[in-house]
């Protein structure tokens, strides 16, 4: 564009027309640039701290080191046999929490966005957000006093009738201090994250899509299946993985509720066979750890850091792929529709025209989740143009 006019605000105005930068502008620019840079510095600093502190313990000879052979780190051949079960426990507890929590969270989000009367939806949304404000230590105490005894009858039932499934086998707990109880509380803790992001995404489904589906004779559920879910899929997956990130790092609730052991076990209802998680293990053993033991614990923290990084990257990859494939599928579906009926053609045109709005809406939603604004919108637009 050779002549940038006032109609394109993104374009820079010519030098003479630009407002003169005042000191306040420069100060704010400096502050915000500094803030942005500090994230990088902090992240790099944390990674560096973890690596530097962890290396002595990772490299140590665990079998012959007297310091590592007492207390919480005794009895392991090397760092990896110590951290292995912890990684398993972390992923296992989070996975159960996700299996319990994610469907409920998505259900709540859908109810708020598409079923509830407006006033009820407002109240529900507020309540879900309130859940996010409860400190995890309170969740932990609630887990000990309420959830543990509450789950005991269920545990007994599962163990008696479904004990042949490895998950429900073993000697059932009498105190309720099981990984199941911990995962149920974790599921409640990740509800707000998944619900609020999914709700935003569902709300941004273009009216045109929904109305087109309804006009084609779809019931409400069919409309949700055809219009809302495909549109929101990538966002919901991202929301779920963010919930997983929260579950992976949860510490106090797990440390308080679960009776841990450092071993690999899929049993969910026992007292002594609950796989310990990394974060809870650090919290429980840090106060008494000697120098090298602390370094070993920091080493496990480094691996949690790596796992969280991997989960976030996975979330991005899945979100990106799901977005693309959903778009392809929709276009294929639309292309297969017979163009004979003028109303169908009209509807298809509407839907296609709706894509442009949809692309923008997705962009907004994606920005809310992971901020990859330009990339997503570009993909969407390219797909749309093709």
């Amino acid at each position, binding site marked *: 564009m050779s002549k940038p006019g006032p109609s394109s605000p993104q374009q820079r105005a010519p030098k003479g027309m630009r407002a003169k930068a005042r000191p306040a502008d420069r100060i704010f620019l400096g502050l915000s640039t500094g803030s*942005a840079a500090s*994230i*990088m510095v*902090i*992240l790099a600093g*944390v*990674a560096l*701290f*973890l690596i530097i502190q962890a290396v002595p313990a990772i490299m140590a000879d665990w079998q012959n080191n007297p310091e590592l052979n*007492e*207390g*919480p780190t*005794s009895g392991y051949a090397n760092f990896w046999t110590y951290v292995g079960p912890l990684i398993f426990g972390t992923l296992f507890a989070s996975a159960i929490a996700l299996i319990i929590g994610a469907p409920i969270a998505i259900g709540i989000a859908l109810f708020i966005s598409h079923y509830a009367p407006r006033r009820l939806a407002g109240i529900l949304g507020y309540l879900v957000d309130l859940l996010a404000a409860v400190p995890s230590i309170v969740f932990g105490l609630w887990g*000990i006093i309420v959830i*543990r*005894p509450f789950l005991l009858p269920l545990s007994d039932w599962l163990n008696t009738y479904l004990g042949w499934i490895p998950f429900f086998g073993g*000697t059932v*707990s*009498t*105190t*309720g*201090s099981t990984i199941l109880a911990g995962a149920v509380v974790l599921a409640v803790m990740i509800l707000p994250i998944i619900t609020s992001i999914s709700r935003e995404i569902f709300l941004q489904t273009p009216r045109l899509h929904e109305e087109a589906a309804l006009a084609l004779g779809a019931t409400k559920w069919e409309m949700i299946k055809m219009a809302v879910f495909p549109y929101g899929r990538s966002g919901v997956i991202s929301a779920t993985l*963010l919930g997983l*990130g929260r579950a992976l*790092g949860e*510490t106090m609730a797990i*440390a*308080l509720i679960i*009776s*841990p*052991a*450092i*071993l690999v076990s899929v049993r969910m209802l026992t*007292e*002594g*066979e609950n796989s310990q998680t990394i*974060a809870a293990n*650090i*919290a*429980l*053993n*840090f*106060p*008494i*750890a*000697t*120098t090298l033991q*602390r370094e070993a614990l*920091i080493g496990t*923290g480094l691996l*949690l*850091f790596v796992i*969280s*990084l991997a989960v*976030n990257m996975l979330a*991005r990859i899945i979100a990106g792929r799901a977005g693309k494939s959903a778009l392809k599928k929709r276009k294929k579906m639309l292309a297969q529709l017979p163009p004979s009926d003028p109303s169908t053609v009209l509807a298809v045109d509407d839907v296609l025209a709706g894509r442009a709005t949809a692309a923008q809406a997705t962009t907004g939603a994606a920005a809310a989740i*992971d*901020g*990859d604004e330009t990339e997503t919108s570009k993909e969407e637009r390219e797909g749309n143009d093709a």
Partner: protein
Amino acid sequence: MKLKNVAAVGSLALVTALALSSCASSGGDAGSTDSATPTSAAPTIDFASLSGTITAGGSSAQANAEAAWITAFTAQAKGVTINYDKSQGSGGGVTNWLAGSYDFAGSDSPLKDDQITQSQTLCGPGGALNLPVYLDGVAVIYNLAGVTDLNLSSATIAKIFSLQITTWNDPAIAADNPGVTLPSTPITTVTRSDGSGTTTNFTNYLSQTQPSIWTNAPGNAWPIAGSSAQQGGSGVVNTVKAGDGTIGYADHSAIGDLTAANVQVGTGTDFVAFSAEGASNAFTAAATTVDTGVEGDLAQKIDYTAITDADAYPIPLISYQILCTTFADEAQGELTKAFVSYVASDQGQQISAKNAGAAPIPADMLAQIATSLELVK
């Protein structure tokens, strides 16, 4: 730019880092403004002349006693502020003290050899003193419907906690309790999931009295999988209380309204309930001062097999205050010394016994502590 994504990871990492670095308490000496009058004799403290701040932390076992001592001490010495951080645990307390953040550390175990070496960097060639100022007992608590009075021999305790006995009507328990009807409820042992000085004391007791049954090395982490492992003494107490057929161990001062078992003394037929007097007698009978090579050091070693009299409780628990013989800041040294002298005085011990459920340290040990404190400057 995937900035926000990075940010999400970063914030998670930051939380982890904050959790990790929470031990690096700023602490520091808030040097006293006017120098206190030197108090040479320990029991006579000139409270009015003292001012400043003492920063300390460590063992949670002695936290209630510390709170009671601090309240009583600062009620008289108006110019003094004392902070005791119990969230650190014994290990964290010693680590922070060695780093110079604390004036004294509270610890359930005396300094280890390498820590003694490290302490000379902080305290100079005079080293550091382990002063046994807190005495309590490890209580074996249980919750079993219909049973309110239970005797347990050391062998039975060792078998229960090593999971060799799994039901309450086991012949070994019945033999300890003639005439008591025991239900067939399965036993759930409740232990500590976090490292603890209480665990150290209890596993020491088990491995000394029943080495053939309890074959695990003593330590601050519970060595056997298969128990219900809970965080903190309160976690153990709550879980024992909530379950049926549960048995656990905890500092006696923390057990609340739970019933504690009567524990067999030695190998005889006497079963003793915890009492402050019993713990003091056990201290007299079993604790001997270890020679650590540091002048005035009073680190104790308990020989649990030496507790054989019916007037002694078999599982005493000792906790220490650890401080330098030479403080970098002389006034701070005098202030800390005044507080520790008060704690190790007859009055201080009565306060912890009355307000924190502890047992008083025997008088001859208090006299030895007073002598050792004269080395502090």
